[in-house]
């Protein structure tokens, strides 16, 4: 696996923030590579720099110094619009609070990233959105609005939205943070399924439990890389799910949507 070139490479990445007179060093020189087909969790407590790292990996922020090479392209020096193009064509985001557009159907939410790619026709957009919804098992709910879906279903729509532009890497930010354990495991099943199909995934979480579903865990602390370990025993989310005690309520009413 290490013979191929990395899909994502960060080298001595630093990020400073000015907070009044003080300079906060959120990242103090972090380096790692992620290879195609890897499922990596990035762990760390609050203040470890993992959110800053994710923002940079997601091309929404630029490092103060160091390099970030995504799919062979240096991104440190790119302008706003060029970064937007990378986000549109190479990245897929899954957020903690789903961030679906309210009063917009599931399929339209999934189509959204493709709207910002003028090369894709309306028919192709529709076709690809249906394919993405099929991958998360929600094609039967494609005309439902977010408030007609459970939290788990909303997150699955969000995952479909992250898949629809066929990104080189999917970035998930605490994607199970708003969900109960059962639903979290269901979501992890989907991520494992995507991983088995060859997708590259970087999953930020602070729950050690979730990290056991991934093949590799990078731990950050105080802006530095603390650990980078390969998980020898990857837990199967499907098995873990089946071992959970049966639910008391059938479906959660968790709702989170963009208002």
């Amino acid at each position: 696996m290490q013979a191929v070139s990395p899909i994502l490479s960060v080298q001595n990445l630093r990020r400073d923030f000015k907070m009044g007179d003080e300079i906060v060093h959120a990242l103090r020189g972090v380096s790692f590579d992620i290879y195609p087909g890897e499922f990596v969790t990035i762990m760390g407590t609050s203040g470890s720099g993992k959110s800053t790292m994710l923002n940079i990996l997601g091309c929404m922020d630029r490092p103060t110094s160091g390099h970030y090479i995504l799919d062979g392209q240096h991104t440190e020096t790119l302008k706003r619009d060029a970064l937007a193009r990378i986000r549109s064509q190479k990245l897929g985001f899954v957020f903690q609070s789903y961030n679906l557009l309210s009063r917009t159907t599931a399929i339209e939410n999934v189509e959204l990233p493709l709207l910002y790619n003028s090369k894709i026709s309306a028919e192709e957009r529709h076709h690809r959105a249906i394919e993405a919804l099929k991958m998360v098992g929600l094609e039967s709910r494609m005309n439902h609005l977010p408030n007609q879906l459970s939290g788990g279903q909303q997150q699955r729509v969000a995952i479909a939205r992250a898949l629809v532009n066929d990104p080189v890497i999917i970035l998930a930010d605490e994607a199970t943070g708003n969900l109960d354990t059962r639903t979290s495991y269901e979501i992890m099943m989907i991520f494992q399924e995507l991983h088995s199909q060859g997708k590259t995934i970087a999953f930020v979480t602070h729950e050690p439990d979730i990290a056991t579903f991934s093949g590799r865990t990078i731990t950050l602390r105080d802006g530095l890389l603390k650990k980078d370990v390969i998980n020898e025993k990857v837990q199967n989310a499907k098995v873990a799910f089946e071992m959970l005690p049966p639910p008391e309520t059938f479906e959660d009413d968790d709702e989170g949507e963009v208002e």
Partner: protein
Amino acid sequence: MNPFTLAKIALRALFRNRMRTFLSVLGIVIGVAAVITMVAMGEGSKKSIKEQMTAMGTNAITIMPNQSRRGGVQTESTEMLEEEDVIAIRENATYINGVSPMVTVGGQAIVGNNNSPTTLSGVSADYLKIRNYEIEDGVMFDDEADRMSKVCVIGQTVVKNLFADENPIGKTIRYKSIPLKVIGTLKAKGSGDFGQDQDDVIFTPYQTVMRRFSATTNIRQIYANSIGEGYAAKATEEIMTILKERRNWTKPTDPFRVFTQEEMIQMVTSTSDMLSLVLTAIAGISLFVGGIGIMNIMYVSVTERTKEIGLRMAIGARGRDILLQFLFESVIISLLGGAIGIALGIAASETVKLAMNWPMSVSVTSVIVSFGVCFATGVFFGWYPARKASRLDPIEALRFE
């Protein structure tokens, strides 16, 4: 993103906030309707004045003393017109086929218990031709035979006021205690909407007025008729020359002012132009206020949808895409308001025309310009909120609650 998709997104967002959209649109509707109606009023009155002036005779030329005034104070003695000027023009001018002085006396015409507050106009027989009047019944007085005689020719309004159903010919009216015998009546010309009633006239020989009523030799105005439409300029030049020669005039300033009917129309309508400009400007202010309403609502909308903007940016929207999305919203509001406002303005103009019999004329130019101004309003007032949206930081925006 293609314009069709942008329009769809914008329309959906506007539809979601129906009441808010309606109120913003209403601001523009009121502004545009006001502009359209005010312009229609201005254009209508201008048109009506023009029609009246044309009805007065297209070849008419007006001669008046040139009063040089500075700050309301007469700085030089004014050269007055005299009867000899009329005679000189009649005898010497070649581009003129009719000339008449105009001397007036204010007062009341009385017959029995009836009265008519009509100005008595002293003119010569040519006046009918110059002003497009025609005799309905009886005859016009003759300049030579009826010189200074106590006769008059009256318009239909005066007939109505003084004689009701009787035939006025041969009857006598009293004007300032002087009896005048009615020898003719004029055909109705119809009244103008803003100008004077052209049928509310009493004509008598000008010498009668000058000798019997006002005991003056000065003439306020002289009217002449050029021989054809193309000769007005030549005729005015010729008249000026005759008037100057008679006085051996050497001063650089002209002693009189000579206007063609075209120039008179311009003079009269310039006041109404000014008025309609002021009215339109006031209406324009309400359109401006409507624009501010759009700007306000767009700012609210941008703030409210910060998280949506953050999401759109995170999944690949460029600043430009966000800018256009919000700009489309404001332009749709303003164009919608414009379209409804134009329809409402036209309807209001037609209603005023029918209900109050005012001359209203909706100009195509005002409709096109209004629509253009609406578009510009949408872009102008939508620009800053849209730019604010487009410059949001995606990370900050996503975190916004």
